């Protein structure tokens, strides 16, 4: 079992630290480069969402992120204390429209749902928790 934890400030410039940790986790857990890419993308999308929409301005509020794998699946847990959001109310992008007719928002969450097998969101007492789960294909070494 590989577990990696990090607490990042609510600033987009922290993203590079997060990406380094994703690769560290992925390599130690022997994940395929495709799976590492998916984890990187889903994690960036949620981190960027929390930083951009959860707080009034960037600052020193902490966002706690944990990666862990056990056997055939892995999970990512993201905890923040920003403004909660109503996951059901986020408008789904219409992916049948030509590019120039598309709306600019809503893509991040859409990507997360496509890349992960399970997405659980919970908000209680000023604490928001997002959990992603993904089945792992075995990776030969």
């Amino acid at each position: 079992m590989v577990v990696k934890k990090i607490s990042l400030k609510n600033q987009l410039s922290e993203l590079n630290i997060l990406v380094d940790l994703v690769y560290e986790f992925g390599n130690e857990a022997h994940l395929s480069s495709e799976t590492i890419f998916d984890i990187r993308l889903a994690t960036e999308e949620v981190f960027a969402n929390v930083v951009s929409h959860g707080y009034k301005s960037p600052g020193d509020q902490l966002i706690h992120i944990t990666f862990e794998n056990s056997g055939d699946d892995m999970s990512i847990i993201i905890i923040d204390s920003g403004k909660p959001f109503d996951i059901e109310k986020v408008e789904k992008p219409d992916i049948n429209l030509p590019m120039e007719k598309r709306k600019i928002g809503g893509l991040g969450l859409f990507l997360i749902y496509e890349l992960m097998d399970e997405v659980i969101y919970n908000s209680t007492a000023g604490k928001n928790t997002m959990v992603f789960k993904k089945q792992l294909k075995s990776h030969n070494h």
Partner: protein
Amino acid sequence: MELNITINEYKNSMKEVQLSGSLDSNSYQQLDNEIKNLLESAIHIIVLNMKDLEYISSAGIRVIVKTQKALKLKNGGLYFMNLKPQVKKVFEIINVLPFMQIIDNLDEIDLP
């Protein structure tokens, strides 16, 4: 993990924008600024050469969608070259591949 942008003059109404590295929440602003400058000029054809682009997230896609909208208004066009498989996969998930003009080389573009 940073983004590098190189802009090549091709013909007078067209520029090739070469991207390398990561187009993400932390770097999209760089591309947004470069494209803003191009859109203010007489340029109406932009080619995004993604030969060395290793990663793209929704922040990068938003810049691309914005560019496509702006070029459409200018009666111009946005073209794409050399997408890596993992970048192509992101475009595939959001189903924009059928709407993208993907070319193998710059000569394929008909300039007026």
